């Protein structure tokens, strides 16, 4: 009985999708050549595929519901394994050791290409962590994050091109420019509510890109800036091979630095204010928190990181043009934050690795890459909206008046 109705449901779904995809999947027209191609095979594929998938879909929905119920019934959330591991020192320290060793020997056992990819992934880790301050902690949806990335990249590109300034000199300048733009753009718009903020930041992101594209005198337009210097090693320019390794370690350092800073920030007076602001703005203000200033600090800090990574990006690719800073890039960074788990540092790291490395290694399916990317976003949101790692924010555990429970050492 149950089985029958399930099959009937799937059959209906399958029929519906066969209907739905009929014109696009089955018919291919070439109006230029006045040709029409009928691909009935696709219809069969869609039919069978959606029949099977609809079972899977419903099964997963049921699983999700059951999971929720279990949590309710238990009355408490399951402590995520990640937290358990991080709290168990016997497990955690060896793991950390193995990981560190792996990180250090990585560039020496793998090819330059692998190192390059890893560096790229790490860049996205840092970008994700930066955006995480804005979106995850302060709850401000920023769809134009890539604008600050562009600002950083062009800061280095232009200073290097015109004045020959090196990476190390410009890195703080890039961070500063990011922060400056964050404040300039943030100041007027931060009093807007969630979705409006999202759309205005999207607008700003596009404006920055369009200006870079059109203002030839400043930015060299769409042809971009080439021959940007790689980071120097105590004033020496390195060969390509060693530069790759050097950039990799630089990136590792930067990522560690970012994790350190973000971790400290989120367990501080400022971090608390961000989280509270995300929870309830009005109550926050009534408690004496300056809404604008606090939001601005989150926005500017996120932008600072984007600016810094922009400099790094320019130094790594040695060539920049506006095409690298499209909305899609913002969407990818945002997806990293959301996929990993908003507000969670470990989540963002894993999110970056999954979203950047997986497509890189699935090049064989390169045509389907973006298709899968889109599908993954939807599926994640439907079945695991809290991200891969739900936020296990460390809360203040009060353990007595003499031992203030700020146990984050």
């Amino acid at each position: 009985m149950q089985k029958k109705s399930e099959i009937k449901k799937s059959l209906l779904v399958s029929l519906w999708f066969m209907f739905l995809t009929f014109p696009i999947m089955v018919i291919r027209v070439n109006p230029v050549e006045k040709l029409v191609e009928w691909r009935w095979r696709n219809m069969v594929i869609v039919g069978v595929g959606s029949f099977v998938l609809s079972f899977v879909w419903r099964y997963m929905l049921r699983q999700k519901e059951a999971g929720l119920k279990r949590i309710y019934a238990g009355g408490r959330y399951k402590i995520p394994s990640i937290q358990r591991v991080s709290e168990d020192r016997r497990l955690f320290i060896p793991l950390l050791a193995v990981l560190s060793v792996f990180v250090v020997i990585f560039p020496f056992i793998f090819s330059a290409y692998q190192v390059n990819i890893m560096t790229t992934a790490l860049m996205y880790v840092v970008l994700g962590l930066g955006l995480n301050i804005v979106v995850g902690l302060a709850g401000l949806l920023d769809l134009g994050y890539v604008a600050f990335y562009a600002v950083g990249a062009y800061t280095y590109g232009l200073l290097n091109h015109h004045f020959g300034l090196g990476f190390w000199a410009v890195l703080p300048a890039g961070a500063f420019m990011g922060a400056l733009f964050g404040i300039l753009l943030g100041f007027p718009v931060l009093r807007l509510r969630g979705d409006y903020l999202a759309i205005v930041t999207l607008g700003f992101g596009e404006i920055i890109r369009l200006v870079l594209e059109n203002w030839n005198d400043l930015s060299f337009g769409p042809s971009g800036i080439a021959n940007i210097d790689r980071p120097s090693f105590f004033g020496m320019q390195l060969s390509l091979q060693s530069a790759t390794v050097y950039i990799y370690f630089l990136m590792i350092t930067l990522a560690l630095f970012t994790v350190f800073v973000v971790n400290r920030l989120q367990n501080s007076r400022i971090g608390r204010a961000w989280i509270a602001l995300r929870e309830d703005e009005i109550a926050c203000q009534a408690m004496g928190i300056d809404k604008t200033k606090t939001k601005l600090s989150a926005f500017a800090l996120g932008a600072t990181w984007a600016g810094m990574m922009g400099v790094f990006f320019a130094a790594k690719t040695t060539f920049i043009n506006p095409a690298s800073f499209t909305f899609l890039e913002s969407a990818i960074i945002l997806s990293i934050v959301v996929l990993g788990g908003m507000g969670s540092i470990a989540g963002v790291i894993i999110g970056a690795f999954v979203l950047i490395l997986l497509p890189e290694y699935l090049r064989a399916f390169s045509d389907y890459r973006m298709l899968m990317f889109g599908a993954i976003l939807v599926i994640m949101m439907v079945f695991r909206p809290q991200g891969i790692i739900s936020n296990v924010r460390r809360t203040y555990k009060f353990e007595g008046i003499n031992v203030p429970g700020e146990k984050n050492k």
Partner: protein
Amino acid sequence: MLKLVNVKTFYGNIQALKGVDIEVSEGEIITLIGSNGAGKTTTLMSISGITSPGSGEIFFRGRPIHNMSPDKIVSLGISQVPEGRHIFQKLTVMENLHMGAFLRTDKDSISEDIEYVFGLFPILTERRHQAGGTLSGGEQQMLAISRALMARPRLLLLDEPSLGLAPKIVKQIFGIIRKINSEQKTTIFLVEQNANLALQVAHRGYVMENGKIVLEDSSDRLLSNEAVKKAYLGL
């Protein structure tokens, strides 16, 4: 008429109802009293199908309704006046009333019913073309009750009709509630903070604590029950 059997409902990660049994007979006014957070509103929302019960059964006139969608439940004759009134702010008073009759198709008797509720609450007649949001608190409560009546319910669920109203208005509204029950023979399920007032109009009462029914009796006896007096009547 309405029967809740061991209803358990989860709300967020809190179990709001921990096995509730309630029975309402035709033509009665019953009241459910208890402190905030005891699960009174959740009980009503479970009956209306807004929050689906995790387990347990709800029967209305013998039919199980715990797996029905809210609109089906309304069509069976259960209307609710939710806590906080929930007037459609931008719709006019008339439109609000028409929304109350959303599932009905009998045009003529709809206009009859509108006349009826205007008779109950004459002030609404003056306000008929005003947007719901511009009404005062008391008027909104009247509109909310009228809207619920527009569905011609057999069972009317009222959630905290006295909330935030001046004592004067509260008195008026409770008078009308009694009137609806006696004139229209509408069964009424009343949830109230103000236990004193509620028990005065109701025939029977249930006392709820922490998601469980702890006491069930006729109103008179509840009014004189020592425990109830102490905890809910503040005597």
